[in-house]
């Protein structure tokens, strides 16, 4: 038993933390918040050059070949910003989906560019009026003379505007089992008929994508047609704990903000942290943070050591999504007025916590899949 990070991971953690302090201070994060993709090219390229986008991609495809835990160390620090941008969408979920679903040739074609940052992926699975799960994939791809024609709308797609390529889940065969008959198609976003726009509101970099007679060669299907969902599910199982670690980092940031504010904000002639009602908020925040942290670490460890991890991954996502959401609520209780000022920085997290609560399935979805995974 050893629940500490190893030396390389500690070093990596310090390196990323330093980078965030120097390159992404609050002034920068507030600018990124107004940026169309959250990742201006110069910042994206710098981070890709540091190797943090391609960490999970095996070395033979131009990546770092790191473990999930190594990668989580980086995302926890990025989550403290929170640093927006398609790092997770492309470098984690996109890359893992190509790794799980793609042929050898497709992996060789796509992954080195993803690691380098010259291709940016976004997986487009969800559709309007559909609950999360394989049943949501209804968009059709009509085969004709060695091509597929896509028509329809994908909704709530993270970082689709930032992406250069979309991995689109389409239904290529009807089936009793909704997880069967789904194919994953790589679509160059510059193709005619593809349009993506960012949805406005209290959410970040979540998009609507429309396909109007978009024609791609049949070779754009990753791996075997009809077998897309199981591959995507395997990719999600590994990707989700990385997303959770980003949420853990977010919890840590709002925890630090709240403790600091409890010491420096004076009311009734004393720091507000002397009031037990204020302390209660921070204690509940702490419990949510640590619950998110340890469920996530255990899921990462199980995956990295090839143990069955399904129920732990669902647990981590349910707990971390709820945890980040609630941690932000408690932080707002502590901060009151100043917390809702955009330039203070707390609302960056609050918006992110709401956005990620839904990402790849909400807590109720994961609780129910956890019950399935536990054979109840």
């Amino acid at each position, binding site marked *: *038993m*050893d*629940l*500490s*990070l190893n030396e390389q991971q500690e070093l990596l953690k310090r390196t990323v933390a330093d980078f965030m302090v120097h390159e992404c201070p609050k002034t920068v994060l507030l600018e990124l918040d107004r940026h169309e993709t959250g990742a201006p090219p110069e910042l994206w390229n710098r981070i890709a050059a540091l190797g943090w986008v391609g960490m999970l991609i095996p070395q033979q495809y131009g990546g770092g070949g790191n473990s999930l*835990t190594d990668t989580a160390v980086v995302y926890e620090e990025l989550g403290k910003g929170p640093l927006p941008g398609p790092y997770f969408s492309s470098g984690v979920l996109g890359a893992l989906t190509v790794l799980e679903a793609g042929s050898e040739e497709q992996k060789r074609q796509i992954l080195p560019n993803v690691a380098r940052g010259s291709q940016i992926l976004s997986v487009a699975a969800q559709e309007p009026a559909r609950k999360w799960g394989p049943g949501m994939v209804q968009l059709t791809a009509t085969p004709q003379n060695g091509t597929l024609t896509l028509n329809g709308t994908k909704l709530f797609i993270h970082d689709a505007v930032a992406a250069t390529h979309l991995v689109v889940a389409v239904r290529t065969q009807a089936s009793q089992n909704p997880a069967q008959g789904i194919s994953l198609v790589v679509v160059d976003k510059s193709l005619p008929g593809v349009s993506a726009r960012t949805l406005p509101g209290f959410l970040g970099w979540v998009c609507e994508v429309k396909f109007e007679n978009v024609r791609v060669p049949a070779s754009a299907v990753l791996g075997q047609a009809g077998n897309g969902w199981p591959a995507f599910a395997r990719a999600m199982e590994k990707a989700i704990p990385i997303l959770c670690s980003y949420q853990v980092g977010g919890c840590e940031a709002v925890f630090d903000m709240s*403790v600091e504010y*409890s*010491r420096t904000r004076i009311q009734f002639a*004393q*720091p*507000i*942290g*002397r*009031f*037990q009602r*204020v*302390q*209660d908020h*921070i*204690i509940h925040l*702490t*419990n949510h943070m*640590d*619950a998110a942290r*340890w*469920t996530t*670490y*255990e899921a*990462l*460890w*199980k995956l990295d*050591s090839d143990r069955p991890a399904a129920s732990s991954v669902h*647990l981590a996502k*349910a*707990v971390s999504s709820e945890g980040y959401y609630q941690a932000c609520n408690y932080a707002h209780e502590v901060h009151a007025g100043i917390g809702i000022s955009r330039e203070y920085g707390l609302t960056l997290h609050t918006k992110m916590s709401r956005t990620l609560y839904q990402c790849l399935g909400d807590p*109720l979805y994961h*609780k*129910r899949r*956890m*019950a399935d995974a*536990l054979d*109840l």
Partner: protein
Amino acid sequence: MNFEVEYTPEQEAFRKEVQSFLKVNVPAGLVTTAAVEAITHEQYLMQRELGRKLGGKGWLFPTYPKEYGGGGLNLDQTIILEEEMDQYGLSLPPYYNSGGNLGAPSILVWGTDGQKRQFLPPIFKGEVRVWQLLTEPGAGSDLASVKTTALRDGDDYVLSGQKIFVGSNHEVDWLWTLAVTDPNAPRHENLSWFMLDASLPGITIQPLDLLTAGGEGGAGSGVKNSVFFDDVRAPASALVGGENNGWKVATTHLELEHGGGGHIGRNRLWERLLHYCMTHELDGRPMTKDQDIRDLLMDIYIDIEIGRLFGVRNYFLTHAKKARSYEGPQSSMWRKSGNLRIAGFIQKILGYLALTTDPAHVVEEGHIELHQRSAIVGLHPGGTVEVQKLIMARRIGIGRTVREEAGRLA
């Protein structure tokens, strides 16, 4: 990171040794029953006999120094011992021993060489069972306001006062007690600890009528008692950690009592609840196939899993001797408030069945009904949830720039 203890061939050999030892030495009549107050005297004597046998091998207090009768074993060996004891539904020690579990580490940190030699070997070898006496009718959460006095008189201290919510059923050998040694000194500078022989004249033990037995961690503590001291004369050598230094000594054992030591092991309540729901039907199908029940079971499971992970983390921090801060009281708070939340979820699942002990309808031999009561009883031992939150706040440094440190452990 590694959440699992990985065993070397030597450790696997140790497990075999423990298994064969327990196979021979755990008597058949030593069963865990829902009604801990119903443990017979005969069963209690079996627990003590097993304790002495474990103590003889240094396995009763495995991580403590050999020179005082501990096992001198490492974390992994201790986990093996606890896992194997758990197979029989037993913990270490296999009986209620609050004063030993919490007093011994305090003595190891604060006792003189002579006191370590006098007090530790009988505890570690299982020769004595010790209860801890803290709470008084007028001093609960405000422990520093205890009124029981121990006044110096020649070579002795003379104790007078009353302690409450103490111990367990059946007999006890020693009492680990906090008392006022200087009634005129300021708060926190007036207290001392004593390791007393329970058979001293003037000590009266009187059982209390409570909702149920309960203890920190639900350690099967049997009934609770009042203990009265009427001019009890104890030798000066019974005072541990220096006269009027008792509040500092208390930080060590309170750290342990507040969950700082950590815990690993399976959750029997979950196993029992799941077993019942999988083997019983509601409206013609297994209870676990009902969506509402599945959702409630997952609420319980998440609560338990978070508590388990807090316990595992604390266990690691303690045994790997890492820096600790608010983790002990956090774990205690989670377990206490979590048990109450879980009791609520269980009643939503089982309804009246969660509440009855009627032999025709009882669920899981009464363990579920017992949990409904012990979840309430378990809220206070070792400090209320509110006290845990206070300690957490100080150690996190909420509203203060200097963070309070966690208590010293040996």
